[in-house]
């Protein structure tokens, strides 16, 4: 199909779809109305189970089964990335050379890194009380580690994040979420039922029954998943190179990585 035909098709059908969407949006309930059927129910249910952050209650209690699906999507995406971004037959690994980092950047990164990690953990831990939670805190904590890449170099980053360990932790976090869900079935209530643990005192860290536990599992899953994802992409960008040539900048390490990665040179 020529470019012209394609644009013409998009223009005509896009106009039709746009007209339909505009007509639909005119029928939406007016902004700022007083009727919120779902919101009212969700807040009532959250308060009944002593969860101060209603969003956390929706995520990890009322619709925890959806969260299971979302977590699995992330898990599958990581697994898919590991499979798709593996070293292909005609690629080899080259050790990246350390690059010069400006001193202010280095200082800033090293000062902010611990703060960001603690911030991430805080956001995870307080998910049931204040805005945030496992998804958000996990991303903060995981990206914080990568400040090391900016502040020092790739190999420093590699030392603090053994990817294999993070992969195992990722799948253990998924298992933990599932086991917490199965506990409900074993206890005779329902899958992911928040009825086993006491609901605690409203607005304290140990409130909400199951919610903090599921939240922690998600936090761990997301943090590990983001680390592994970024590691795979960084690998492609920094280490894995096309073609059969070899640079021997760092002979010993090269041998090691060769051993780790088995075949090379299109074996």
């Amino acid at each position, binding site marked *: 199909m020529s470019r012209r035909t394609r644009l013409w*098709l998009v223009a005509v059908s896009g106009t039709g779809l746009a007209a339909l969407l505009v007509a*639909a949006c005119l*029928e939406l309930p007016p902004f700022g109305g007083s009727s919120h059927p779902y919101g009212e129910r969700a807040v009532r249910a959250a308060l009944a189970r002593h969860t101060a952050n209603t969003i956390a209650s929706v995520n990890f209690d009322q619709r925890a089964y959806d969260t299971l699906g979302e977590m699995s*999507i992330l898990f599958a995406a990581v697994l898919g990335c590991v499979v798709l971004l593996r070293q*292909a037959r005609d690629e080899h690994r080259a050790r990246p050379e350390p690059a010069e980092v400006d001193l202010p950047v280095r200082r800033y990164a090293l000062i902010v890194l611990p703060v960001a990690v603690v911030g991430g953990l805080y956001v995870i831990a307080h998910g049931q009380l204040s805005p945030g939670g496992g998804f958000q805190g996990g991303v903060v904590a995981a990206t914080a580690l990568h400040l090391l890449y900016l502040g020092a170099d790739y190999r420093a980053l590699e030392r603090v994040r053994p990817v294999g360990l993070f992969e*195992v932790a990722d799948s*253990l976090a998924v298992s933990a979420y599932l086991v917490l869900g199965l506990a409900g079935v074993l206890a005779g209530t329902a899958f992911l039922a928040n009825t086993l643990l006491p609901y605690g005192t409203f607005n304290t860290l140990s409130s909400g029954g199951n919610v903090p536990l599921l939240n922690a599992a998600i936090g761990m899953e997301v943090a590990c998943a983001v680390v592994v994802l970024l590691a795979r992409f960084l690998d492609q960008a920094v280490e894995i190179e096309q073609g059969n040539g070899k640079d021997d900048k760092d002979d010993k390490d090269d041998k090691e990585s060769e051993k780790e990665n088995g075949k090379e040179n299109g074996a």
Partner: protein
Amino acid sequence: MHHLLPLLVALPLLGAALLVAGGRRLPRRAAETIGCTVSGATAALAITLLLNSSPPLVEWAGGWVPVNGESVGIMLIGDGPALGMAALASLLTSAALAYSWRYFDEPPRRHAGSFPALMLVFQAGMCGFAIAGDLFNAFVFFELMSVVAYALTGYRIDEAKAVQGALTFAIVTSLGAYALLMGIALLYARTGELAMAQIGRGLDRTAVHGGPDALVLASFVLVLTGLLVKAAAVPFHFWLPDAHAVAPTPVCMVLSGVMVELGTYGVWRVYGTVFAGPGGIPPADLRRVLVVLGVLTAVVGAVMCWYQRHIKRLLAYSTVAHTGLFLIGIGVLTPEADDGIALYLIAHAGVKAALFACAGILLDRYGSVDELALFGKARQLRTVAALWGVGALGLAGLPPFGTALGKAVTEEAVGGALALVYVAASAVTGGAVLRVGARVFLGLGPRPKSDGEYETTGAGERPETRRRLSRVPDTMTAVPALLLAGALAVGTVPGFGGLVADAVNEAGSGGVVVTSVHWTVPGVLLGLASALLAVGLTAVAVTRPALLAAPDRALPLRRLQSGHIGDYVAWLLVGTTLLGVLALPGVLGA
């Protein structure tokens, strides 16, 4: 019993997580055994639940049982069709895992468990989608199975075609998913509900002047777009041949056998629970939408199927053609047609997966899936030849295959000209497969000449096994044989059709309508007619290739499958608008 429903999702996910956790230590054989065991156990669970699904099971995840008709939880449905699809998906996943037993070249280093783990997550996604009674939850599992399917499609990263096919698949299906999500948002804005049944009731309650308005129409169009992209209805189908031609064979078995059909199932489920009421889309409009799209899909799929020489692409187009037949069947909205389609879908899954399995054997033995290049080469593969021939006749709808029974019941329900579409589409697709068999396994007719520069040849494909197979492993022939036996059993085991019909009716009309499913004389005759037509087409194609070769006027149709993602996106927009236009009269009339 109903508390066990979520285990259909949890069990394979747990298996996958453990496989990944232990994958660095596990030897390959152990990883594959675990994969097969977990997948088989899930299949057993699905079948056990299925046998206990009358009256239908309902589960509220988290124990949020509705109080005064209101709940904040997620509803899972365990009726016949839902658990039937879950069981079918699980059985096919198990079959694919058994087929791929020590099959791949080399698993990614230190990740021996990654292929079985991906298949298990795929299984969990399909089961979750099948038993979802909540529209948003259905979307979540729609995404889960899509994400895994992209990764599995691109599994052979050393081939540019595989990566391209996976990318096309990912972009087109993601657009479909966004449309689905937007549709869900519109429905939520109107009703404040996410459970399908509650949305349906909400629409009826809030209907202005007792009929649908633009918002209902838009949400219907958007939701249907998402599901039809998955079902690969024309013009949303372009991703399918590109993806199925390059995906590893065991993955194709599941993609073509059941994932695509889950889109059709989704249309049936969503229309029946959400849009069937007075506040939804009137039946006449749904009928127009699905029958028009279904006929278009069946015709385009069958024609394109006939003109392929790349064997996996040919099978992929036959899936498109059958999707069209399924859509017509659920579109006419009669209980009998629903029963017929249910049977047709089950038997088709067995036949299609078996044919893909045979194509995989050709690929691994000869390093090619090109009909012309393989001419007469596979003479010594007698068992595979027999399986291929039986599969082709099953696809064409030869009695007593389950495909023939399902088709006969549906033909009787749709009647008239639409029945002819069924006969023609199944005959052409079955004939195309039979033609491949006659040339590749028997070497019949003159050696065909290659022509046309727009063809995708199947030559130059890389085998998926470590080296070309000198001997076909027993698992690789046993799996298609079992699948074909299953498809045969659907049509021959007495009482099976009745069971399926009861289950579908109980879910569709609450068991008010009682239908009977059995072989009838016209049904058998129509089945024989399409099988004979398939044989006749094959005979002409093999002896006089010029008569049925692709004419020049078919070229524009074939050029539409350009491989350009922009084209496919443009067609997706066209399809969405077409849906809107076809369903518009119901809104204007309200």
